[in-house]
């Protein structure tokens, strides 16, 4: 494990960027889903990725988290220890160990497990005990489980769900599932959290809670967030910088107020006025 990561390290320790996407392209059977896209995220920043339906936002996410392998381009990620890694060389399940974690558009909660166990799943990459020591419940395995459990309970309290800890995840409403999934990302010692439409399907007050949480995360967990969202109020409300894309290409990139005023972005969302 250690060697594979070691191999992917490039000399870029002084960088303040947590994620640097350059010239990213991927196509599916002739259709260019993402076309020469570049952007970068600073440490502690909340970054928004917006665009109309089918613009390729989720594809960008899947490329960053290595669920898809991009055809071209590089994705550099700087972990908390200051080392920079080329993500495209890693399999999907190793990305989280560097501190890059994601949520899913339609929530991927394990319904069979309790709320607490779902959060502990987020800590999977932090566990070091092996299968045999788990089976015999060796002291070190038990200690680790206990420590992680305490940490998960802390996160549950942070997101306001501590009373649901032992409840079945299957019995929870959609808004709670969204929160569980968000909480799950906090247990891997994250540097960057990628949120795929975190507010989809949430009501007004749930969205407000979530906005406060996302804003709080960069402060309390010292990590950045990359957000794809349709709810413009949420995006404009929490993001420091925004990248707007359409048909896989970048329309505009800049601070939030700049994007709000940008004519190309307005065209893409509202349709071009016939002259």
């Amino acid at each position: 494990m250690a060697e594979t990561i070691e191999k992917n390290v490039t000399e870029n320790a002084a960088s303040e960027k947590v994620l640097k996407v350059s010239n990213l392209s991927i196509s599916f059977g002739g259709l260019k889903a993402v076309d020469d896209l570049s952007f970068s995220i600073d440490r502690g920043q909340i970054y928004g990725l917006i665009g109309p339906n089918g613009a390729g936002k989720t594809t960008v996410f899947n490329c960053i988290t290595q669920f898809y392998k991009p055809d071209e381009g590089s994705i550099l990620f700087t972990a908390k220890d200051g080392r920079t890694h080329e993500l495209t060389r890693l399999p999907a399940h190793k990305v989280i160990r560097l501190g890059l974690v994601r949520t899913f558009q339609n929530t991927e909660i394990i319904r069979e497990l309790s709320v607490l166990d779902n959060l502990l799943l987020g800590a999977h990459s932090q566990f070091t005990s092996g299968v045999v020591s788990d089976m015999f419940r060796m002291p070190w395995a038990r200690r680790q489980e206990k420590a992680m459990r305490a940490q998960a309970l802390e996160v549950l309290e942070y997101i306001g769900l501590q009373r649901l800890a032992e409840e079945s995840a299957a019995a929870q409403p959609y808004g709670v599932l969204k929160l569980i999934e968000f909480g799950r990302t906090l247990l891997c010692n994250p540097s960057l959290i990628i949120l795929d439409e975190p507010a989809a399907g949430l009501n007004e007050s749930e969205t407000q809670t979530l906005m406060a949480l996302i804003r709080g995360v960069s402060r309390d967990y010292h990590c950045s967030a990359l957000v794809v969202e349709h709810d413009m109020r949420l995006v404009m409300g929490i993001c420091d910088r925004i990248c707007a894309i359409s048909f896989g290409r970048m329309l505009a990139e800049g601070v939030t107020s700049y994007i709000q005023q940008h004519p190309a972005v307005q065209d893409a969302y509202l349709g071009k006025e016939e002259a």
Partner: protein
Amino acid sequence: MDVFQKHVLRNKYLQYLLVGALFLIPVIFPGFSTSFLTLMGGVVYLAIAGTGYNVLLGYSGQISLGHAAFMGLSAYVSAYLTGEMGLPFGLSFLFAVLAPFLVGLLLGAIAVRLQGFYLAIATLGFGEILRLIFIEMDWFTGGFSGSQAKYPMIFGARLTKEQTYIGMVVLMVLLMMLVYHLVNSHTGRALIAMKNSQHAAQAMGISIFKYKLVAFAISSLFAGISGVCYVHFIRYSDPTVWTAMLSLNLIAQVVVGGNGTIGGPIIGALVIRGLPDLLKSTPIIGEIAGIPVLLSGVLMIVVLMFYSKGLIFIPAGIRLALRKHILRREREKGKGA
């Protein structure tokens, strides 16, 4: 009472020990026939294999129709090593269990690329190939005429049938505890996550490759232990035992008992192995050939129709129904007053 309920009745270790104690009734109390003990031995070796198979099917969501052949493999290895080679039982046990473990790892490596029906067919083929090898390699397995084994020899003393049975029950209880530990650890959570959503699992850092291998390896290991138990308890092994039918039995056992529960495979083994024999010994029904097997089949279908989660959930179901009934009663009373 509350403290008692919380610390004693809910204590999993005590529950498993209690199961073991119940299984020991036929050797502790007199009046049970030898054939009953043979039947119970059959239940125990199936329970051991089922406990491992449950890690594969119930917790990881993978299927295999080749596990019967793994049981056979360890049975033959153990019979050969203790018989022909004269190895001590402990050492031969180790080798006999290691063989299906390694073959299981190999099958797991193949299984990583397959899912659902394809996995079922591939494992079926794998198991059948092993079984054909059992038939062909008659210097090792005795071919069609089978191979003989003796009760285990421990520290120079040959165990009796009863002692062998006790040993099997002890093993069963230990293995239940190990699986209980496993499924309540981060490994267990990873297996369950993999079964429910491979995407979520991968995003959380769970290597699908690693955990499929883990599931196959553990279930094969348990199948191996079960095979050793079989051959040294029945003292005979022939290729007609290790067919895909036995693998199907394992599936039925886990599903009927309770998929993804520790007690499920044990209850399943009792029902699948015990029910036909129980019906056979009842008057009238048992006297017509074929009827006991038919009836147990029908019973199983009925169970699955009304209790698709498995027999182990029946007490919980009854408790829930009772509570609902009491609530309704109270509500009606409230209305009346």
